[in-house]
Protein backbone atom coordinates (compact mmCIF):
# COMPACT_ATOMS: atom_id res chain seq x y z
CA UNK A 1 0.00 0.00 0.00
CA UNK A 2 2.79 2.39 0.74
CA UNK A 3 5.39 3.50 -1.70
CA UNK A 4 8.78 1.98 -0.95
CA UNK A 5 10.42 5.16 0.21
CA UNK A 6 7.95 5.90 2.97
CA UNK A 7 8.42 3.98 6.14
CA UNK A 8 5.38 2.10 7.34
CA UNK A 9 3.27 3.96 9.84
CA UNK A 10 3.40 7.38 8.25
CA UNK A 11 0.74 9.58 6.79
CA UNK A 12 0.50 7.63 3.58
CA UNK A 13 -1.51 4.87 5.21
CA UNK A 14 -4.44 7.20 5.63
CA UNK A 15 -4.44 8.23 2.00
CA UNK A 16 -5.09 6.10 -1.04
CA UNK A 17 -1.57 6.46 -2.37
CA UNK A 18 -1.51 5.69 -6.03
CA UNK A 19 0.67 2.76 -6.82
CA UNK A 20 3.70 3.04 -9.02
CA UNK A 21 4.14 6.76 -8.88
CA UNK A 22 7.59 8.06 -8.30
CA UNK A 23 7.90 10.17 -5.26
CA UNK A 24 8.73 13.35 -7.12
CA UNK A 25 5.77 13.12 -9.43
CA UNK A 26 3.19 15.80 -8.77
CA UNK A 27 -0.20 14.46 -7.96
CA UNK A 28 -2.32 15.69 -10.76
CA UNK A 29 -5.87 14.98 -9.59
CA UNK A 30 -5.70 16.37 -6.06
CA UNK A 31 -2.57 18.24 -5.06
CA UNK A 32 -2.98 17.96 -1.30
CA UNK A 33 -0.44 19.09 1.25
CA UNK A 34 0.44 15.53 2.05
CA UNK A 35 1.50 14.84 -1.47
CA UNK A 36 3.97 17.69 -1.62
CA UNK A 37 5.31 16.93 1.80
CA UNK A 38 6.08 13.35 1.09
CA UNK A 39 8.86 14.22 -1.29
CA UNK A 40 11.22 15.12 1.50
CA UNK A 41 10.90 11.75 3.17
CA UNK A 42 8.54 10.93 5.94
CA UNK A 43 11.17 11.11 8.62
CA UNK A 44 11.77 14.85 8.27
CA UNK A 45 9.06 15.98 10.74
CA UNK A 46 10.35 13.48 13.26
CA UNK A 47 13.84 14.84 12.83
CA UNK A 48 12.55 18.31 13.60
CA UNK A 49 10.63 16.98 16.56
CA UNK A 50 13.51 14.98 17.95
CA UNK A 51 15.07 17.60 20.28
CA UNK A 52 11.69 18.64 21.66
CA UNK A 53 10.57 15.06 22.22
CA UNK A 54 13.88 14.13 23.85
CA UNK A 55 13.71 16.98 26.35
CA UNK A 56 10.00 16.60 27.08
CA UNK A 57 10.26 12.85 27.29
CA UNK A 58 13.23 12.85 29.61
CA UNK A 59 12.29 15.67 31.90
CA UNK A 60 8.52 15.72 31.83
CA UNK A 61 7.04 12.40 30.80
CA UNK A 62 9.56 10.26 32.66
CA UNK A 63 9.21 12.28 35.89
CA UNK A 64 5.43 11.92 35.65
CA UNK A 65 5.89 8.16 35.43
CA UNK A 66 8.29 8.30 38.39
CA UNK A 67 5.85 10.41 40.37
CA UNK A 68 3.22 7.73 39.90
CA UNK A 69 5.71 5.02 40.82
CA UNK A 70 6.93 6.71 44.00
CA UNK A 71 3.34 7.25 45.12
CA UNK A 72 2.96 3.46 45.32
CA UNK A 73 6.19 2.91 47.26
CA UNK A 74 7.29 3.42 50.80
CA UNK A 75 9.79 6.20 50.27
CA UNK A 76 10.97 8.33 53.16
CA UNK A 77 14.30 9.61 54.43
CA UNK A 78 15.33 6.08 55.42
CA UNK A 79 14.95 4.83 51.85
CA UNK A 80 16.63 7.86 50.32
CA UNK A 81 19.75 7.41 52.41
CA UNK A 82 19.68 3.67 51.75
CA UNK A 83 19.12 2.69 55.37
CA UNK A 84 15.99 0.72 54.60
CA UNK A 85 14.92 -1.00 51.42
CA UNK A 86 12.26 0.55 49.22
CA UNK A 87 9.18 -1.60 49.00
CA UNK A 88 5.91 -1.64 47.15
CA UNK A 89 3.08 -0.35 49.25
CA UNK A 90 0.18 -0.51 46.83
CA UNK A 91 -2.51 2.01 47.61
CA UNK A 92 -1.15 2.46 51.14
CA UNK A 93 -0.15 6.08 50.62
CA UNK A 94 -3.49 6.90 49.08
CA UNK A 95 -5.35 5.24 51.93
CA UNK A 96 -3.29 7.23 54.39
CA UNK A 97 -4.02 10.39 52.47
CA UNK A 98 -7.76 9.86 52.03
CA UNK A 99 -8.26 9.02 55.70
CA UNK A 100 -6.39 12.14 56.78
CA UNK A 101 -8.94 14.88 57.54
CA UNK A 102 -6.30 17.53 56.84
CA UNK A 103 -6.04 16.39 53.22
CA UNK A 104 -9.75 16.94 52.62
CA UNK A 105 -9.61 20.28 54.35
CA UNK A 106 -6.66 21.36 52.15
CA UNK A 107 -8.37 20.05 49.01
CA UNK A 108 -11.53 21.99 49.82
CA UNK A 109 -9.53 25.14 50.57
CA UNK A 110 -7.62 24.75 47.28
CA UNK A 111 -10.78 24.37 45.19
CA UNK A 112 -12.62 27.23 46.89
CA UNK A 113 -9.61 29.54 46.84
CA UNK A 114 -8.84 28.80 43.19
CA UNK A 115 -12.50 29.36 42.30
CA UNK A 116 -12.53 32.69 44.11
CA UNK A 117 -9.33 33.75 42.34
CA UNK A 118 -10.64 32.71 38.91
CA UNK A 119 -14.00 34.43 39.30
CA UNK A 120 -12.49 37.67 40.63
CA UNK A 121 -9.73 37.73 38.00
CA UNK A 122 -12.19 37.18 35.15
CA UNK A 123 -14.67 39.74 36.45
CA UNK A 124 -12.01 42.40 36.95
CA UNK A 125 -10.24 41.61 33.67
CA UNK A 126 -13.43 41.66 31.56
CA UNK A 127 -14.81 44.79 33.23
CA UNK A 128 -11.57 46.67 32.62
CA UNK A 129 -11.37 45.40 29.03
CA UNK A 130 -14.83 46.88 28.36
CA UNK A 131 -13.81 50.07 30.13
CA UNK A 132 -10.75 50.33 27.88
CA UNK A 133 -12.94 50.40 24.79
CA UNK A 134 -14.83 53.42 26.08
CA UNK A 135 -11.97 55.78 26.85
CA UNK A 136 -9.54 57.86 24.77
CA UNK A 137 -5.98 56.86 24.04
CA UNK A 138 -4.23 58.48 26.99
CA UNK A 139 -6.13 56.87 29.91
CA UNK A 140 -6.07 53.63 27.96
CA UNK A 141 -2.30 53.78 27.66
CA UNK A 142 -1.99 54.54 31.39
CA UNK A 143 -3.98 51.47 32.37
CA UNK A 144 -2.23 49.28 29.79
CA UNK A 145 1.20 50.28 31.07
CA UNK A 146 0.20 49.78 34.71
CA UNK A 147 -1.27 46.39 33.88
CA UNK A 148 1.81 45.30 31.95
CA UNK A 149 3.89 46.27 34.98
CA UNK A 150 1.77 44.10 37.26
CA UNK A 151 1.86 41.26 34.73
CA UNK A 152 5.64 41.43 34.45
CA UNK A 153 6.24 41.41 38.19
CA UNK A 154 7.71 38.08 39.31
CA UNK A 155 5.52 36.15 41.72
CA UNK A 156 8.13 36.30 44.46
CA UNK A 157 8.59 40.06 44.34
CA UNK A 158 4.86 40.65 43.92
CA UNK A 159 4.32 38.62 47.07
CA UNK A 160 6.96 40.45 49.09
CA UNK A 161 5.64 43.85 48.00
CA UNK A 162 2.04 43.00 48.88
CA UNK A 163 3.05 41.64 52.27
CA UNK A 164 4.90 44.89 52.87
CA UNK A 165 1.93 46.99 51.74
CA UNK A 166 -0.26 45.21 54.29
CA UNK A 167 2.38 45.08 57.01
CA UNK A 168 0.78 45.79 60.42
CA UNK A 169 3.59 48.11 61.52
CA UNK A 170 5.04 49.85 58.48
CA UNK A 171 2.52 49.24 55.69
CA UNK A 172 0.54 52.10 54.13
CA UNK A 173 -2.70 50.14 53.75
CA UNK A 174 -3.47 49.69 57.43
CA UNK A 175 -2.62 53.35 57.99
CA UNK A 176 -4.92 54.38 55.16
CA UNK A 177 -7.82 52.21 56.32
CA UNK A 178 -7.24 53.01 59.97
CA UNK A 179 -6.82 49.36 60.89
CA UNK A 180 -4.08 49.98 63.44
CA UNK A 181 -1.79 46.99 63.79
CA UNK A 182 -4.25 44.45 62.42
CA UNK A 183 -2.24 41.49 61.14
CA UNK A 184 -3.55 40.22 57.81
CA UNK A 185 -1.59 36.99 57.93
CA UNK A 186 -2.77 35.99 61.39
CA UNK A 187 -6.35 35.06 60.59
CA UNK A 188 -7.10 32.34 58.07
CA UNK A 189 -9.56 34.26 55.92
CA UNK A 190 -7.75 37.59 55.98
CA UNK A 191 -4.55 35.80 54.91
CA UNK A 192 -6.38 34.12 52.03
CA UNK A 193 -7.92 37.48 51.12
CA UNK A 194 -4.48 39.07 51.01
CA UNK A 195 -3.12 36.35 48.74
CA UNK A 196 -6.23 36.63 46.57
CA UNK A 197 -5.63 40.35 46.07
CA UNK A 198 -2.05 39.71 44.97
CA UNK A 199 -3.10 36.90 42.63
CA UNK A 200 -5.81 39.03 41.02
CA UNK A 201 -3.39 41.94 40.70
CA UNK A 202 -0.82 39.92 38.78
CA UNK A 203 -3.20 37.80 36.69
CA UNK A 204 -5.99 40.17 35.59
CA UNK A 205 -3.74 41.86 32.96
CA UNK A 206 -3.59 38.68 30.87
CA UNK A 207 -7.40 38.50 30.86
CA UNK A 208 -7.79 42.21 30.22
CA UNK A 209 -5.35 42.40 27.32
CA UNK A 210 -6.67 39.25 25.67
CA UNK A 211 -10.35 40.16 26.02
CA UNK A 212 -9.64 43.72 24.90
CA UNK A 213 -7.97 42.41 21.75
CA UNK A 214 -11.03 40.21 21.24
CA UNK A 215 -13.49 43.08 21.61
CA UNK A 216 -11.45 45.12 19.13
CA UNK A 217 -11.94 42.34 16.61
CA UNK A 218 -15.75 42.62 16.85
CA UNK A 219 -17.10 44.73 13.97
CA UNK A 220 -18.02 48.12 15.41
CA UNK A 221 -21.34 48.16 13.51
CA UNK A 222 -22.64 45.40 15.72
CA UNK A 223 -21.90 47.31 18.91
CA UNK A 224 -23.22 50.56 17.47
CA UNK A 225 -26.45 48.91 16.41
CA UNK A 226 -26.91 47.54 19.92
CA UNK A 227 -26.20 50.95 21.44
CA UNK A 228 -28.65 52.67 19.07
CA UNK A 229 -31.30 50.13 19.99
CA UNK A 230 -30.92 51.38 23.52
CA UNK A 231 -29.09 48.44 25.06
CA UNK A 232 -27.30 49.21 28.31
CA UNK A 233 -23.59 48.51 28.67
CA UNK A 234 -24.32 45.41 30.73
CA UNK A 235 -26.84 44.19 28.15
CA UNK A 236 -24.35 44.76 25.31
CA UNK A 237 -21.75 42.74 27.20
CA UNK A 238 -24.13 39.92 28.07
CA UNK A 239 -26.01 39.60 24.79
CA UNK A 240 -23.52 40.76 22.17
CA UNK A 241 -19.92 40.74 23.32
CA UNK A 242 -19.85 37.67 25.57
CA UNK A 243 -21.33 35.31 22.94
CA UNK A 244 -18.96 36.63 20.28
CA UNK A 245 -16.01 36.38 22.62
CA UNK A 246 -16.88 32.87 23.74
CA UNK A 247 -13.78 31.19 22.27
CA UNK A 248 -11.48 33.72 23.92
CA UNK A 249 -13.34 33.53 27.22
CA UNK A 250 -12.99 29.75 27.23
CA UNK A 251 -9.23 30.05 26.76
CA UNK A 252 -8.69 32.63 29.51
CA UNK A 253 -11.00 30.79 31.91
CA UNK A 254 -9.21 27.50 31.49
CA UNK A 255 -5.80 29.16 31.72
CA UNK A 256 -6.87 30.92 34.92
CA UNK A 257 -8.20 27.71 36.44
CA UNK A 258 -4.93 25.95 35.72
CA UNK A 259 -2.77 28.78 37.03
CA UNK A 260 -4.77 29.37 40.18
CA UNK A 261 -5.16 25.73 41.03
CA UNK A 262 -1.38 25.34 40.94
CA UNK A 263 -0.56 28.37 43.08
CA UNK A 264 2.57 27.88 45.07
CA UNK A 265 4.87 30.89 45.36
CA UNK A 266 2.29 33.38 46.58
CA UNK A 267 0.99 31.13 49.35
CA UNK A 268 4.48 29.99 50.30
CA UNK A 269 5.99 33.46 50.51
CA UNK A 270 3.04 35.47 51.81
CA UNK A 271 1.86 33.08 54.50
CA UNK A 272 5.35 31.82 55.25
CA UNK A 273 4.94 28.25 54.04
CA UNK A 274 1.22 27.69 54.53
CA UNK A 275 0.18 29.95 57.38
CA UNK A 276 -0.05 29.41 61.12
CA UNK A 277 -0.54 25.69 61.80
CA UNK A 278 -1.01 25.15 58.06
CA UNK A 279 -4.26 27.12 57.96
CA UNK A 280 -3.49 28.55 54.48
CA UNK A 281 -2.18 25.38 52.86
CA UNK A 282 -3.18 24.61 49.29
CA UNK A 283 -2.46 21.27 47.61
CA UNK A 284 0.80 22.31 45.97
CA UNK A 285 2.31 23.70 49.15
CA UNK A 286 0.93 20.77 51.13
CA UNK A 287 2.68 18.30 48.82
CA UNK A 288 5.90 20.25 49.07
CA UNK A 289 5.76 20.38 52.86
CA UNK A 290 5.01 16.65 53.09
CA UNK A 291 7.86 15.76 50.76
CA UNK A 292 10.64 18.15 51.58
CA UNK A 293 9.87 19.34 55.11
CA UNK A 294 8.88 15.98 56.60
CA UNK A 295 10.70 13.76 54.05
CA UNK A 296 7.54 11.76 53.26
CA UNK A 297 8.33 11.67 49.56
CA UNK A 298 5.80 8.97 48.72
CA UNK A 299 2.96 10.83 50.43
CA UNK A 300 3.94 14.04 48.66
CA UNK A 301 3.95 12.17 45.36
CA UNK A 302 0.48 10.80 46.04
CA UNK A 303 -0.78 14.38 46.53
CA UNK A 304 0.97 15.29 43.27
CA UNK A 305 -0.85 12.48 41.48
CA UNK A 306 -4.20 13.70 42.82
CA UNK A 307 -3.42 17.19 41.50
CA UNK A 308 -2.34 15.82 38.18
CA UNK A 309 -5.60 13.90 37.80
CA UNK A 310 -7.73 16.93 38.66
CA UNK A 311 -5.87 19.11 36.15
CA UNK A 312 -6.12 16.36 33.56
CA UNK A 313 -9.90 16.40 33.99
CA UNK A 314 -9.90 20.18 33.44
CA UNK A 315 -7.82 19.67 30.30
CA UNK A 316 -10.23 17.10 28.92
CA UNK A 317 -13.10 19.55 29.38
CA UNK A 318 -11.01 22.16 27.58
CA UNK A 319 -10.33 19.82 24.67
CA UNK A 320 -14.01 19.03 24.38
CA UNK A 321 -14.89 22.71 24.30
CA UNK A 322 -12.25 23.35 21.65
CA UNK A 323 -13.56 20.52 19.56
CA UNK A 324 -17.12 21.74 19.88
CA UNK A 325 -15.98 25.06 18.52
CA UNK A 326 -14.79 23.13 15.52
CA UNK A 327 -11.17 24.01 16.01
CA UNK A 328 -8.75 22.07 13.91
CA UNK A 329 -5.69 20.98 15.81
Amino acid sequence: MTTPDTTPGTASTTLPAPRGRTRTAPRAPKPTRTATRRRAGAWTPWLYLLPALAVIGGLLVYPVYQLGLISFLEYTQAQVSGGEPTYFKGFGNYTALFTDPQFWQVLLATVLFAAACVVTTLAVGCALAVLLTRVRALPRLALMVAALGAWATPAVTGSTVWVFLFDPDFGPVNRLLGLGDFSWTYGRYSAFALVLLEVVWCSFPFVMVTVYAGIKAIPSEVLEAAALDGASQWRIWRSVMAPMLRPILVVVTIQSIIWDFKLFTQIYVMTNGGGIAGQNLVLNVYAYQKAFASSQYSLGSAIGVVMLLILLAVTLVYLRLLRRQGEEL
Partner: protein
Amino acid sequence: MTSLRIRRPGRLVAEAVTLLVAAAVAFPLYWMVLSALKPAGEIQSTEPRPWTLSPSLDSFRRVFDQQEFGRYFLNSLIVAGTVVLASALIAFLAATAVTRFRFRFRTTLLVMFLVAQMVPVEALTIPLFFLMRDFGQLNTLGSLILPHLAFSLPFAIWMLRGFVKAVPEALEEQAQIDGASRTRFLWQILFPLVFPGLVATSVFSFISTWNDFLFAKSFLISDTSQSTLPMALLVFFKPDENDWGGIMAGSTVMTLPVLVFFVLVQRRLVSGLGGAVKD
Protein backbone atom coordinates in the same frame (compact mmCIF):
# COMPACT_ATOMS: atom_id res chain seq x y z
CA MET B 1 -17.81 55.89 17.82
CA THR B 2 -21.28 57.40 17.58
CA SER B 3 -22.42 55.89 20.83
CA LEU B 4 -19.36 57.35 22.53
CA ARG B 5 -20.03 60.78 21.16
CA ILE B 6 -23.60 60.73 22.44
CA ARG B 7 -22.58 59.99 26.02
CA ARG B 8 -19.91 62.54 26.67
CA PRO B 9 -20.23 62.92 30.43
CA GLY B 10 -20.27 59.14 30.64
CA ARG B 11 -16.95 58.98 28.90
CA LEU B 12 -15.38 61.45 31.30
CA VAL B 13 -16.47 59.33 34.24
CA ALA B 14 -15.09 56.27 32.50
CA GLU B 15 -11.78 57.99 31.92
CA ALA B 16 -11.56 59.11 35.52
CA VAL B 17 -12.23 55.55 36.66
CA THR B 18 -9.61 54.23 34.24
CA LEU B 19 -6.97 56.59 35.57
CA LEU B 20 -7.86 55.70 39.16
CA VAL B 21 -7.60 51.99 38.43
CA ALA B 22 -4.29 52.56 36.64
CA ALA B 23 -2.96 54.40 39.68
CA ALA B 24 -4.13 51.63 42.01
CA VAL B 25 -2.58 48.93 39.82
CA ALA B 26 0.71 50.80 39.59
CA PHE B 27 0.79 51.64 43.29
CA PRO B 28 2.48 48.42 44.55
CA LEU B 29 5.33 48.86 42.09
CA TYR B 30 5.64 52.54 42.96
CA TRP B 31 5.74 51.66 46.64
CA MET B 32 8.38 49.01 46.01
CA VAL B 33 10.74 51.42 44.26
CA LEU B 34 9.96 54.18 46.76
CA SER B 35 10.71 51.96 49.75
CA ALA B 36 13.93 50.79 48.15
CA LEU B 37 15.04 54.41 47.90
CA LYS B 38 13.90 55.51 51.36
CA PRO B 39 16.53 55.86 54.07
CA ALA B 40 16.30 53.24 56.84
CA GLY B 41 14.65 55.57 59.33
CA GLU B 42 11.73 56.33 57.05
CA ILE B 43 10.99 52.70 56.25
CA GLN B 44 10.77 51.78 59.91
CA SER B 45 8.41 54.67 60.49
CA THR B 46 4.88 53.89 61.63
CA GLU B 47 3.70 56.92 59.66
CA PRO B 48 4.65 55.86 56.12
CA ARG B 49 4.62 58.76 53.65
CA PRO B 50 4.03 58.26 49.92
CA TRP B 51 7.17 60.23 49.04
CA THR B 52 10.69 60.69 50.30
CA LEU B 53 12.71 63.86 50.54
CA SER B 54 16.07 62.21 50.97
CA PRO B 55 16.37 59.27 48.57
CA SER B 56 19.39 57.07 49.17
CA LEU B 57 20.91 54.01 47.57
CA ASP B 58 21.84 52.51 50.95
CA SER B 59 19.43 49.60 50.63
CA PHE B 60 20.77 48.68 47.19
CA ARG B 61 24.33 48.95 48.45
CA ARG B 62 23.54 46.72 51.43
CA VAL B 63 21.91 44.14 49.19
CA PHE B 64 24.80 43.96 46.75
CA ASP B 65 27.44 43.97 49.48
CA GLN B 66 26.04 41.50 51.93
CA GLN B 67 24.42 38.98 49.73
CA GLU B 68 26.54 38.65 46.62
CA PHE B 69 23.42 39.75 44.83
CA GLY B 70 25.40 40.45 41.68
CA ARG B 71 26.37 36.83 41.44
CA TYR B 72 22.81 35.62 41.99
CA PHE B 73 21.63 38.09 39.39
CA LEU B 74 24.11 36.67 36.91
CA ASN B 75 23.07 33.11 37.76
CA SER B 76 19.42 33.97 37.16
CA LEU B 77 20.36 35.62 33.90
CA ILE B 78 22.37 32.59 32.73
CA VAL B 79 19.55 30.19 33.54
CA ALA B 80 16.80 32.30 31.96
CA GLY B 81 18.92 33.20 28.93
CA THR B 82 19.86 29.60 28.19
CA VAL B 83 16.27 28.43 28.53
CA VAL B 84 14.97 31.20 26.27
CA LEU B 85 17.47 30.54 23.47
CA ALA B 86 17.25 26.77 23.61
CA SER B 87 13.48 26.65 23.86
CA ALA B 88 13.08 29.13 20.98
CA LEU B 89 15.20 26.97 18.66
CA ILE B 90 13.75 23.63 19.70
CA ALA B 91 10.17 24.93 19.68
CA PHE B 92 10.66 26.48 16.25
CA LEU B 93 11.71 23.13 14.78
CA ALA B 94 8.89 21.28 16.50
CA ALA B 95 6.27 23.86 15.53
CA THR B 96 7.41 23.63 11.92
CA ALA B 97 7.07 19.86 12.06
CA VAL B 98 3.51 19.91 13.36
CA THR B 99 2.23 22.67 11.05
CA ARG B 100 4.04 22.14 7.74
CA PHE B 101 3.85 18.36 7.65
CA ARG B 102 1.10 15.84 7.84
CA PHE B 103 2.17 12.65 9.49
CA ARG B 104 0.73 9.93 11.60
CA PHE B 105 0.31 10.73 15.32
CA ARG B 106 0.40 14.44 14.52
CA THR B 107 -2.88 15.14 16.30
CA THR B 108 -1.89 12.83 19.15
CA LEU B 109 1.31 14.80 19.57
CA LEU B 110 -0.55 18.11 19.60
CA VAL B 111 -2.93 16.88 22.25
CA MET B 112 0.08 15.66 24.19
CA PHE B 113 1.67 19.11 24.04
CA LEU B 114 -1.56 20.61 25.30
CA VAL B 115 -1.85 18.13 28.14
CA ALA B 116 1.81 18.65 29.03
CA GLN B 117 1.10 22.31 29.68
CA MET B 118 -1.30 21.35 32.41
CA VAL B 119 1.15 19.21 34.32
CA PRO B 120 1.74 20.95 37.64
CA VAL B 121 5.44 21.72 37.63
CA GLU B 122 5.50 21.70 41.39
CA ALA B 123 4.22 18.15 41.66
CA LEU B 124 7.21 16.93 39.66
CA THR B 125 9.69 18.47 42.05
CA ILE B 126 10.00 15.17 43.90
CA PRO B 127 10.91 12.89 40.94
CA LEU B 128 13.01 15.65 39.36
CA PHE B 129 14.93 15.97 42.60
CA PHE B 130 15.89 12.30 42.46
CA LEU B 131 16.61 12.51 38.73
CA MET B 132 18.97 15.44 39.26
CA ARG B 133 20.60 13.64 42.15
CA ASP B 134 21.21 10.54 40.04
CA PHE B 135 22.79 12.62 37.29
CA GLY B 136 24.88 14.59 39.77
CA GLN B 137 23.18 17.80 38.78
CA LEU B 138 22.10 18.93 42.23
CA ASN B 139 23.56 22.30 43.21
CA THR B 140 24.28 23.20 39.60
CA LEU B 141 22.55 25.66 37.32
CA GLY B 142 21.88 22.76 34.97
CA SER B 143 19.35 21.44 37.47
CA LEU B 144 17.32 24.59 36.82
CA ILE B 145 17.91 24.93 33.09
CA LEU B 146 16.88 21.43 32.06
CA PRO B 147 13.50 21.19 33.83
CA HIS B 148 12.55 24.71 32.84
CA LEU B 149 13.38 23.95 29.25
CA ALA B 150 11.11 20.91 29.37
CA PHE B 151 8.28 22.86 30.98
CA SER B 152 8.42 25.84 28.65
CA LEU B 153 8.53 23.80 25.44
CA PRO B 154 4.92 22.58 25.20
CA PHE B 155 3.49 26.08 25.54
CA ALA B 156 6.11 27.55 23.19
CA ILE B 157 5.33 24.96 20.51
CA TRP B 158 1.60 25.47 20.98
CA MET B 159 1.93 29.21 20.61
CA LEU B 160 4.43 29.21 17.73
CA ARG B 161 2.14 27.01 15.67
CA GLY B 162 0.00 29.99 14.74
CA PHE B 163 2.99 31.99 13.57
CA VAL B 164 4.40 29.20 11.43
CA LYS B 165 0.98 28.53 9.95
CA ALA B 166 0.66 32.20 8.96
CA VAL B 167 3.60 31.93 6.55
CA PRO B 168 2.09 31.11 3.14
CA GLU B 169 2.71 27.66 1.73
CA ALA B 170 3.39 29.23 -1.65
CA LEU B 171 6.55 30.75 -0.28
CA GLU B 172 7.97 27.33 0.43
CA GLU B 173 7.10 26.05 -3.02
CA GLN B 174 8.65 29.15 -4.54
CA ALA B 175 11.83 28.62 -2.56
CA GLN B 176 11.99 25.02 -3.73
CA ILE B 177 11.55 26.02 -7.34
CA ASP B 178 14.35 28.53 -6.91
CA GLY B 179 16.52 25.70 -5.73
CA ALA B 180 16.72 26.39 -2.00
CA SER B 181 17.27 23.31 0.08
CA ARG B 182 14.88 22.48 2.89
CA THR B 183 17.42 23.47 5.52
CA ARG B 184 18.07 26.74 3.79
CA PHE B 185 14.37 27.49 3.55
CA LEU B 186 13.97 26.68 7.22
CA TRP B 187 16.69 28.98 8.54
CA GLN B 188 16.90 31.73 5.94
CA ILE B 189 13.27 32.22 5.04
CA LEU B 190 10.96 30.70 7.63
CA PHE B 191 13.01 31.59 10.71
CA PRO B 192 13.16 35.36 10.08
CA LEU B 193 9.45 35.40 9.26
CA VAL B 194 8.51 33.61 12.46
CA PHE B 195 10.93 35.65 14.57
CA PRO B 196 8.29 38.05 16.02
CA GLY B 197 6.39 35.02 17.23
CA LEU B 198 9.54 33.61 18.76
CA VAL B 199 9.99 36.84 20.71
CA ALA B 200 6.44 36.75 22.02
CA THR B 201 6.86 33.14 23.01
CA SER B 202 10.17 33.71 24.72
CA VAL B 203 8.57 36.20 27.10
CA PHE B 204 6.72 33.34 28.70
CA SER B 205 9.71 31.05 29.02
CA PHE B 206 11.81 33.92 30.31
CA ILE B 207 9.28 34.87 32.96
CA SER B 208 8.55 31.38 34.18
CA THR B 209 12.26 30.65 34.46
CA TRP B 210 13.24 33.98 35.96
CA ASN B 211 10.47 33.70 38.55
CA ASP B 212 11.21 30.15 39.49
CA PHE B 213 11.41 29.74 43.17
CA LEU B 214 10.55 26.14 43.91
CA PHE B 215 13.23 24.40 41.83
CA ALA B 216 15.90 26.78 43.08
CA LYS B 217 14.75 26.12 46.61
CA SER B 218 14.70 22.36 46.18
CA PHE B 219 17.69 21.63 43.96
CA LEU B 220 20.27 24.15 45.14
CA ILE B 221 20.43 22.98 48.69
CA SER B 222 23.97 23.45 49.89
CA ASP B 223 25.91 25.45 47.29
CA THR B 224 24.76 29.03 47.75
CA SER B 225 27.12 30.30 45.06
CA GLN B 226 24.72 28.74 42.55
CA SER B 227 21.73 30.46 44.10
CA THR B 228 19.34 32.52 42.01
CA LEU B 229 17.58 35.77 42.81
CA PRO B 230 14.33 34.55 44.40
CA MET B 231 16.29 32.55 46.94
CA ALA B 232 18.57 35.46 47.71
CA LEU B 233 15.56 37.68 48.25
CA LEU B 234 14.16 35.45 50.96
CA VAL B 235 17.39 35.70 52.95
CA PHE B 236 16.17 39.14 53.95
CA PHE B 237 12.95 37.68 55.36
CA LYS B 238 13.62 37.11 59.01
CA PRO B 239 11.06 35.77 61.45
CA ASP B 240 11.14 38.73 63.82
CA GLU B 241 12.79 41.64 62.03
CA ASN B 242 12.29 41.95 58.29
CA ASP B 243 14.79 44.19 56.51
CA TRP B 244 12.11 45.80 54.35
CA GLY B 245 14.54 48.22 52.72
CA GLY B 246 16.70 45.31 51.60
CA ILE B 247 13.72 43.24 50.48
CA MET B 248 12.31 46.09 48.42
CA ALA B 249 15.68 46.92 46.88
CA GLY B 250 16.18 43.25 45.99
CA SER B 251 12.65 43.04 44.60
CA THR B 252 13.30 46.10 42.46
CA VAL B 253 16.48 44.58 41.05
CA MET B 254 14.64 41.36 40.31
CA THR B 255 11.61 43.02 38.70
CA LEU B 256 13.53 45.43 36.49
CA PRO B 257 14.84 43.01 33.82
CA VAL B 258 11.38 41.51 33.34
CA LEU B 259 9.86 44.96 33.02
CA VAL B 260 12.45 45.98 30.43
CA PHE B 261 11.87 42.75 28.52
CA PHE B 262 8.13 43.32 28.64
CA VAL B 263 8.30 46.88 27.40
CA LEU B 264 10.57 45.83 24.53
CA VAL B 265 8.28 43.09 23.28
CA GLN B 266 4.97 44.55 24.45
CA ARG B 267 3.60 45.07 20.92
CA ARG B 268 4.47 41.62 19.75
CA LEU B 269 3.18 40.11 22.93
CA VAL B 270 -0.31 41.49 22.48
CA SER B 271 -0.51 40.61 18.79
CA GLY B 272 1.09 37.24 19.53
CA LEU B 273 -1.54 36.45 22.13
CA GLY B 274 -4.23 37.51 19.73
CA GLY B 275 -2.81 35.10 17.20
CA ALA B 276 -2.58 32.28 19.69
CA VAL B 277 -6.11 32.80 20.87
CA LYS B 278 -7.69 33.21 17.49
CA ASP B 279 -5.81 30.25 16.16
